[in-house]
């Protein structure tokens, strides 16, 4: 790819779009064609993010100058923070990422009654910490109602305030983070951020108070469970553009080709993504990443415009081979047979691409699972960008790390979505399809640009096993 070819492609695309007289809907999920292309090429590092933003700003202003929308002139001069990055991804920190550590807790804190007598519980999975941050991963739910009442279960998560007290007498007020919207779900996966962070040498914590002033004691000095087997091996370097297409394939598998994003089904959006990456020169049209995505499209019956239907009516499968994970999810994607339970495993992982990570337990449900991670030096920026659209200011995806998992029964799992953004660097990864009912361990696979980490975590369920 020659220097400037990505920007040239974007600018020529803008010319073609301008000739169509675009009507821009404004910021929000209803993105326009140029947003998709600019963020795709910025994510693939086929164009400098600042240049991508400049093309976008010029395009939007040019379009609105033709229909007299003055407001856009101010908006388009205000670049989002990602446009100032030297490359997609968080600004480089001032030093090596702090290594997070996690220890399992595996205890339940019953909560006192709240609204209309409804009482809940916090299932405490793990304590995850760095020298500067600390959090307890939590699964919480409403358990029952203390008095007879016809009021339905609250739609929100339990509000009861808890914190921690350490062996030196220091209090660490807790803030439950990411309780989600009031959607009446059965479980909320979140974390309890503790402030201040724990000092080195802290021997124990008491987390509470729960019902009747009860607390859960977390012994930090006690010998932990056997370490989780972790392996690191080098991998063939893959271009960022190829990794972006692989991520698109995973989103296609997780959400289906008809899921709408920005008013356009995911299948056609991915077809545009392939078009942008190949026509800009970021990827060759017959690159293996293109071919395997085309093969996936063929399997799903979606024309991705990348050769999957080149022989007419999809009569012949394209040449690309599906990765094992994709083939597995194609088979098991619709299953709803996951065990219901909480597994409080903990694993601190070696550095990968400058990131330090710790696994801090998971909650499994019939239709999927939530994996808790503490990350330092990495965040799942823009994950879900292809599915949810890219409103103005949202960053393009950072595909420097990709995550997959395989359970001991041989079923593969992909990341369907994430919650993240707290000060503690906690991430909740929602994986699909659910665990196999007979799975006893889960191998979490994190692929970087040059290496891969595999951590086989045990699925030792709290409270006597899965339900």
């Amino acid at each position: 790819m020659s220097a400037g070819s990505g920007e040239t492609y974007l600018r020529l695309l803008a010319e073609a779009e301008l000739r169509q007289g675009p009507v821009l809907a404004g910021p929000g999920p209803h993105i326009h064609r140029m947003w998709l292309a600019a963020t795709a090429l910025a994510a693939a590092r086929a164009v400098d993010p600042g240049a991508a933003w400049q093309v976008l700003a010029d395009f939007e202003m040019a379009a609105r100058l033709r229909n007299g929308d003055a407001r856009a002139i101010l908006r388009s001069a205000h670049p989002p923070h990602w446009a100032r990055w030297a490359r997609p991804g968080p600004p480089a920190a001032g030093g090596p990422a702090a290594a997070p550590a996690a220890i399992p807790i595996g205890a339940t804190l019953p909560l006192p009654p709240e609204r209309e007598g409804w009482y809940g519980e916090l299932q405490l999975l793990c304590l995850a910490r760095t020298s500067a941050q600390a959090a307890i991963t939590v699964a919480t739910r409403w358990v029952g109602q203390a008095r007879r009442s016809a009021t339905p279960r609250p739609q929100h998560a339990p509000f009861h305030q808890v914190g921690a007290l350490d062996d030196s007498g220091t209090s660490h007020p807790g803030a439950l983070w990411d309780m989600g919207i009031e959607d009446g779900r059965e479980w909320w996966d979140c974390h309890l951020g503790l402030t201040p962070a724990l000092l080195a040498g802290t021997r124990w914590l008491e987390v509470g108070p729960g019902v009747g002033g009860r607390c859960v004691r977390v012994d930090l000095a006690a010998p932990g469970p056997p370490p989780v087997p972790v392996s690191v091996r080098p991998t063939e370097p893959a271009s960022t553009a190829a990794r972006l297409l692989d991520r698109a394939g995973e989103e296609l598998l997780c959400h289906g080709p008809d899921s709408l994003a920005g008013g356009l089904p995911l299948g056609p959006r991915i077809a545009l993504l392939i078009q942008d990456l190949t026509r800009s020169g970021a990827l060759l049209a017959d690159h293996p990443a293109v071919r395997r995505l085309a093969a996936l499209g063929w399997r799903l019956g979606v024309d991705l415009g990348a050769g999957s239907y080149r022989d007419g009516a999809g009569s012949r499968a394209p040449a690309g081979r599906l990765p094992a994970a994709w083939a597995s999810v194609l088979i098991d994607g619709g299953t709803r047979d996951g065990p219901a339970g909480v597994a409080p495993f903990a694993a601190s992982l070696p550095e990968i691409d400058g990131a330090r990570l710790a696994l801090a337990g998971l909650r499994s449900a019939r239709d999927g699972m939530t994996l808790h991670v503490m990350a330092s030096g990495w965040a799942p920026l823009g994950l879900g960008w292809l599915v949810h659209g890219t409103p103005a200011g949202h960053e393009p995806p950072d595909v420097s790390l990709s995550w997959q998992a395989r359970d001991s029964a041989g079923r593969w799992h992909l990341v369907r979505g994430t919650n993240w953004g707290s000060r503690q660097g906690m991430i909740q990864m929602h994986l699909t399809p659910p665990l196999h009912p007979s799975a006893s361990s889960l191998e979490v696979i994190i692929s970087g640009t040059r290496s891969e980490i595999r951590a086989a975590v045990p699925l030792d369920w709290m409270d006597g096993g899965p339900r």
Partner: protein
Amino acid sequence: MSAPWWAALRPAETRISCGTGQHVLRWADGRLAAADHPDAEGELVLAALGGDKAECVAVAEAWGAHHDDLDVLALGPRSPADELAVTWDMVRDLRSVLGHRMGRMGGRAASGWMHSGAAGRPPVSRLAVQRIRSMPMRHLSPEAERAQARRADLLSLFALGRDFQLALSGEVAMAWSAPGSPAPGRDLAAARPALTAALTGRLAPAAAGWLGIEPGQVHAVPHEGAGWGRAERDGAALRAALPASWLARVWAAGCPVVDGYLIVDVLDGAWPRARVRGLREPGAEPVVLSIRHEGEHWTVAAGAS
């Protein structure tokens, strides 16, 4: 010696509100003049020392500041059918917003529009207040403030009218067409994507009509060597390499296609007459034509040689 780049461009003239009157701004022979301000440079010096800046002088200053601004090509018109809906009301509204911000910051606009006069910083009408309230008013960095002020400046130049838009586009194209090494501060390699788009975006509608093809089938790149460049068919597509100066000498003059010829250069002349080189068809050698501007169009006045 070839003709100056503006040889075929129509002189432009407009009146703008300046102080308490209506003043004439004129563009001809490659330069903008504020006819009612014979010592515009002196007025600029006075303004820099804290005096008021007349609108005419501010516009002339903005013109100079944008004479090599590639945003002019990214935002400006592409074809006769491509009209910008930029009005002085819009410019005044933007200035009111930005003036409010600058005032709030206790700063002073770097780009020259914070000046006196009816078109400079007028009393804000109720309608303008409503418009302003609908605009995004978040706190911006000084850098973003300057970028917005620069855009407001550019819009004031577009508001001068179509002939001025074309003239400014021509000046920008010529600034990036200087033979030999580029001027200090101009990175030709970094500008190439913008110049490629500017060429393609302007050649496409003209050449599509010339050949009866879709505009999307027209591909142009900057020609940086000797000669006028090339234009050849590639199946259904047209592939052309033209110097960026084509935008100034030919496109800005409104004569990219004249009576079935793709005009590739202006040899000499003075508006409304010019001697040009034109292609009868892709791949052909250019021929010399005399063309004349009549009504709103150019026509071939004398045959090919």
